[in-house]
Structure formats: structure tokens, C-alpha cells
């Protein structure tokens, strides 16, 4: 198979769009570029996953953790959860190597369907919790206490120092492991899962959760990338345009993110996720079982 200029340029363009929307919607480019590679470019799922996860490493730096964000992030919490995300990533990558392409596509479709549904249930309760000082009133569990996972940061919006006590380590660990498996198996960053684990179950304020998640994504992605690299699944002419495209797209998307975030975007996001979930399921059924769903390409 030789690659034409048009293939490379189209892939570059698709990756830029994927990276752009990923940054805009705060989900990372992997969620859009993997379906794009499989559905538009008819690349095998494993090749798409491997290419995507390498580009996730690139975009984890591209958004740019500003210095402010870095001070807000909880380094120790990131390191602690990385134990589980990296283990999960290794498991996920092994599964990705041994499962059939259509099986991985189906799991990807299920993830998209879940995200389409879940995007409506993320409510920002942080403002109230910060005002009432609820983050500091929680009781640390034994793991959090042993590893001094607590922290504090200065919230510009509320204009106060917010101290928080981390708890719920078992739930956080479970979800972090799942996020790692998803990352390794599906070629996505898994940031959405990690942020929800920290914010909803571990009593971590949203801004800290987002910043801390960004610290983790590159390391998690590196683990599965290593395995894909050694298994020869990183196909050069796919990885290169995808990596460049998502980096450029994500950088631009991050710059615009603060100005454009709105309810309309959430609706578009859910609709897009639902459509992609259906399309990926259709592709998996066609490839694995020869079943053709209605209105599928």
C-alpha cells in the first residue's frame, strides 16, 4: 500500500478537526480521530488506536498546562492515580493486540454511547461546595491520609483559598484503572473518566481535577504506546499526519475554548457522540458478523 499526497493531507485535515473539537469540548482528540480513521479512511481499528494514542501524548502537552494550572494540579494525587492508570493501560493495550478489530470497535461504540448520555449529567456543583467550605470538611480515608493527598489552591473565581481533603480512594482507584484500560484499548486519553473520578468520588475540586488529569494523560498514553510500538502496530504514514494534525488542532481549540463554551456545544457534542456510536457499531457488526444496519455507509 503506498500513500498518496491526498491521503496524507486529508488525514492531516481530519486530525486537525478532531483535535480542534476535542480541545473545544474538553475531551481530547482521540474520541473523534479514531472513528474518523476507521469510518472515513477505512483503516484497521488496531492501527487507528495505536496512531491515536501516540498523538494523545503530543496533545497532552499541546494544550499547554499553564503555570497557573500547574500550581493548581495535585502532583501527588496524579502520581498515585498513575499507578492504576498505567496498569490499566498495559492491560488495555494487551487486549487491543489480541482482540479482533470489530470487538474493539464495539467497545468503542459503547464508550461513545455512554459519553453521549453522560454529557448531560455533569453538573458543576463546585461553586456551592467552595462557598460552603465543603471540600475541607470531608474525612480523609486511610490511603489518602497515609499518602498526604490533601491540598489547597487559590480559586480566582471565588477569590479564596480552597482547602480540600481527598477521600474515596477505592472508588477513585477503580475508575482510574478503568480509564487506563479505556486508554490502552481504545486509543483515547481517558481524561473525562479521570476528572469525574476525582471530582465526584474523591472530593477534589473541578479545577484541580482537570489540571491533575492533564498531568496523568501523557504518562498513561506512553505505556500503551510502548507496547504498540514494540508490536509494530504504529504505522508511520498514519501516525505522522495524525500527530501533527491533532497537535495543531488542539492548540487552536484550546485558545478558543474559553470563549466558545456553551450549551449549544453540549448538544452538538451529544448528537455527534450518538451518531458516531451508531456508526462504529454498524461497522463492527458488518466486519465481525456481516450484519448491515440501516443507514450505515
Amino acid at each position, binding site marked *: *500500500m*503506498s*500513500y*498518496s*499526497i491526498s491521503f496524507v493531507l486529508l488525514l492531516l485535515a481530519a486530525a486537525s478537526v478532531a483535535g480542534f473539537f476535542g480541545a473545544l469540548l474538553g475531551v481530547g482528540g482521540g474520541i473523534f480521530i479514531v472513528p474518523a480513521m476507521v469510518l472515513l479512511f477505512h483503516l*484497521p481499528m488496531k492501527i487507528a488506536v495505536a496512531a491515536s494514542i*501516540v498523538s494523545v*501524548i*503530543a496533545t*497532552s*502537552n*499541546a494544550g*499547554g*498546562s499553564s*503555570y497557573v494550572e*500547574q*500550581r*493548581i*494540579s*495535585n*502532583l*501527588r494525587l496524579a*502520581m*498515585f492515580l*498513575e*499507578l492504576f492508570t*498505567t*496498569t490499566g493501560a*498495559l492491560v488495555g*493495550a*494487551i487486549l487491543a*493486540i489480541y482482540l479482533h478489530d470489530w470487538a474493539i470497535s464495539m467497545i468503542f461504540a459503547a464508550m461513545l454511547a455512554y459519553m453521549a448520555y453522560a454529557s448531560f449529567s455533569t453538573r458543576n456543583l463546585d461553586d456551592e461546595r467552595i462557598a460552603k467550605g465543603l471540600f475541607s470538611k470531608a474525612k480523609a480515608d486511610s490511603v489518602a491520609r497515609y*499518602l*498526604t493527598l*490533601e*491540598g*489547597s489552591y487559590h480559586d480566582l473565581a471565588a477569590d479564596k483559598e480552597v482547602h480540600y481533603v481527598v477521600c474515596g480512594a477505592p472508588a477513585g482507584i477503580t475508575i482510574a484503572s478503568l480509564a487506563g484500560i479505556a486508554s490502552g484499548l481504545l486509543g483515547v486519553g481517558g481524561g473525562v473518566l479521570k476528572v469525574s473520578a476525582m471530582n465526584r468520588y474523591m472530593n477534589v475540586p473541578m479545577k*484541580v481535577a482537570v489540571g491533575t488529569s492533564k498531568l496523568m494523560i*501523557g*504518562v498513561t*498514553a*506512553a*505505556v500503551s*504506546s*510502548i*507496547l504498540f*510500538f*514494540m*508490536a*509494530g*502496530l*504504529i*504505522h*508511520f*504514514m498514519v*501516525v*505522522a499526519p495524525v*500527530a*501533527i494534525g491533532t*497537535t495543531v488542532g488542539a492548540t487552536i481549540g484550546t485558545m478558543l475554548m474559553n470563549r466558545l463554551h456553551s450549551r449549544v456545544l453540549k448538544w452538538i457534542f451529544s448528537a455527534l457522540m450518538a451518531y458516531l456510536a451508531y456508526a462504529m457499531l454498524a461497522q463492527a457488526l458488518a466486519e465481525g458478523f456481516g450484519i448491515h444496519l440501516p443507514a450505515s455507509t
Partner: protein
Amino acid sequence: MSEPSNRGASPMAEEQNVYAGVYHMLIAGMIVSNVLFAIGIVLALIHPQFFPLSASWVSEQYRAKLVFHGLIHGQPTSYFLLGTLLLILTPVARVIVSIYAFWVDHDLKYVAVTGTVFIIMIITVILGAFGIR
């Protein structure tokens, strides 16, 4: 030897400096690998080549001499390979630097935590080298 109790997300000054350095290193790694990818794409399009889509062919390209030779002679595969390796190594380097930063901070619990993450990475390399394919 008592440590300040409120550690959490506020590292000591030396750690912050280490992290500033690491951050710049990560960005530099990302830029260099993207440049290598771009060079590779341009080379591949100028002289279109046949790239088999098989894992065994890709794995066969992992030879230092081949890569070095390829870089000098404008072989796109070598540039792609180097770019990919660099990209993968930047988070690995970050973990190593974190271990050092915690060590400097006398935070042995986190030296152990971060060290374990590094060991997981090593295990991944070993598994890849010896059979998972």
C-alpha cells in the same frame, strides 16, 4: 527529621524549578517530534514509497544502524521512527525526573509510588520484547 504536615499540592521550591524544567522539556520533545514527522512526510511524498501495512515489516525497521543510515540518506521511515520514539520517551523522562524531584524532597513514599510507575513502564517494554505481539 519532621516534615511540614501540609504537603499535598504545594511542592518545595526546588521541585517547582524541576517541574518548570520538565515542562519545557516536554514541549521541546513534542515540537522536535512533530518536526521529524513533518520532514518524514515531505520526504515520503517527494519519493513515494511502498509501506507494507504489516507488524513484522514495521518491527524490522527497529535497527539502530538502519535508522542512522536512513536519517542521513533521507529515508522517511527513519524520521518517523525517531519522532515516535521521542514522543513516547518524553512522558517516561518526566516520570524519571519526578522520582528525582521527590528524592530531593526526601519524600520516600512518593519515590516509591513514582518508582513503581517507572517499573510498570519497564515491564511493558519487557512484555513487548518477549512476546506480546
